[in-house]
């Protein structure tokens, strides 16, 4: 990685001879090496989950939140650099509010994620700014159904059935591809998502993790809220049990 740029990676306003903007790619690496985050669109809603390692024993669980409510019908997880992520969330909240005030309607998710992608992209156009080191993983549920969008730091924005970013994303993506997400309810998917996140941990055993979960589904009245503690705990425990079961049986994962 180091030295690959060889002089073309010093500024975001410089292209390499191959047509790459290295600074923007490096910003993407900030997300790739960040906390694992998963977004999944199910039959009756959408889920976001982020797995945070416990930085220090002195920290209260539930601090350093990574998942934010942007509007009643939209929520967002920000993998990568958290301060940059908060900037994106703030902008998203403003976009939602402005749209509502101007058009009289709640912002369609496609419009929101396009705007956020444009926002992230704008940071790559000026010498005196650096690109944001965080992506926006958006979950929403409107008249067109549940949506998951990822607006990346380089300015692209795509819609997904399910997506993972951060550490261990390749493994999680492989698991997600096997699932028939369109047929699962959010509750069922919660357990599966926890399972994916737990499985990709480097199993040193001693490190503690916290899985932050939030959803927007029929069960939550189509509002974006944190998954209730009991439901979250139940999903996590069920996931752990299943993993132990599999380790014993050494059988294929259920889908």
């Amino acid at each position, binding site marked *: 990685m180091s030295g690959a740029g060889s002089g073309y990676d010093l500024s975001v306003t410089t292209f390499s001879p191959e047509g790459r903007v290295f600074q923007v790619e490096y910003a993407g690496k900030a997300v790739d090496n960040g906390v694992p985050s998963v977004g999944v669109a199910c039959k009756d809603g959408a889920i976001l989950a982020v797995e945070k390692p416990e930085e220090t024993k002195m920290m209260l669980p539930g601090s350093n939140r990574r998942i934010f409510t942007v509007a009643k019908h939209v929520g967002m997880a920000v993998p990568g650099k958290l301060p940059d992520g908060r900037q994106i969330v703030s902008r998203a909240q403003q976009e939602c509010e402005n749209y509502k005030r*101007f*058009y*009289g*309607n709640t912002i*369609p998710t496609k419009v929101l994620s396009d705007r956020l992608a444009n926002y992230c992209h704008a940071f790559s156009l000026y010498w005196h700014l650096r690109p944001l080191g965080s992506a926006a993983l958006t979950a929403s549920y409107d*008249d067109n159904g549940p949506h998951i969008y990822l607006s990346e730091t380089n300015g692209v924005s795509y819609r997904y059935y399910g997506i993972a970013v951060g550490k261990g994303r390749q493994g999680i993506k492989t698991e997600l591809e096997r699932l028939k997400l369109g047929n699962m309810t959010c509750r069922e998917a919660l357990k599966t998502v926890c399972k994916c996140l737990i499985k990709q941990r480097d199993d040193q055993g001693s490190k503690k993790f916290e899985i932050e979960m939030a959803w927007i589904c029929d069960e939550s009245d189509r509002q974006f809220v944190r998954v209730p503690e009991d439901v979250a705990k139940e999903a996590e425990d069920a996931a752990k049990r299943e993993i132990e079961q599999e380790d014993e049986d050494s059988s294929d994962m259920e889908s």
Partner: protein
Amino acid sequence: FFLSHLQRNMGPDQYTHTKKMGTLPTKQEAEGHADWKDAEHRMGTSIMAVQFKGGVVLGADSRTTTGSYIANRVSDKLTSVHDRIYCCRSGSAADTQAVSDIVRYYLDVHSAQMGEAPEVHTAATFFQKLCYDNKNALSAGIIVGGWDKHDGGSVYCIPLGGALVRQPFAIGGSGSTFIYGYCDANFKEDMTRDECHEFVRNALSLAMARDGSSGGIIRTAIIDENGVERFMLPGNQLPTFYEN
């Protein structure tokens, strides 16, 4: 409630509208102000819009006045702001034309960005924003009616101050004051397209018979999923009622 006629806001204190409700057009009255001095084109008007299942019927008279001179006796007060969204304009002709031009532009951009037809509610919100934010400068009473796939047919009323109200049917302009009773008595929910059309024509005809600032022909537009159909009823074919 919404009424606009020849009286205008005068003086530096703009916080009270001098427009009176339900007044017949008399020029010399408006608090010592001689109206004929700055008579612009006004549409003392009768306009209305009625929602039916699957669409809306919009109707208007065709008289535009400059003071007491009828500047245009066949004007078209039903203006398109998008493929399936129309507005009925009453008040100052210039103000309403300017506002609807701006709304047409906004809707154009919005629908291009969204990739689909805009909702009537969105158009009404644009009108409201303009009418409210510029309420001191404008004299515009507008009724928005149209069809969209989300709500079907819908009618929104934006009176003078810039409020936005959705109604099953709405009437406006100076002539509307004379037909509140008729409309309340004869409106029924779930009328068919043709019943609505007849309702609009009858009501406007009555308004035009009594209001000096309304007259000419009745123009109507029926908007549904398939598009817009426009009609014109000449003055000598208007439905007649009790005539001395």
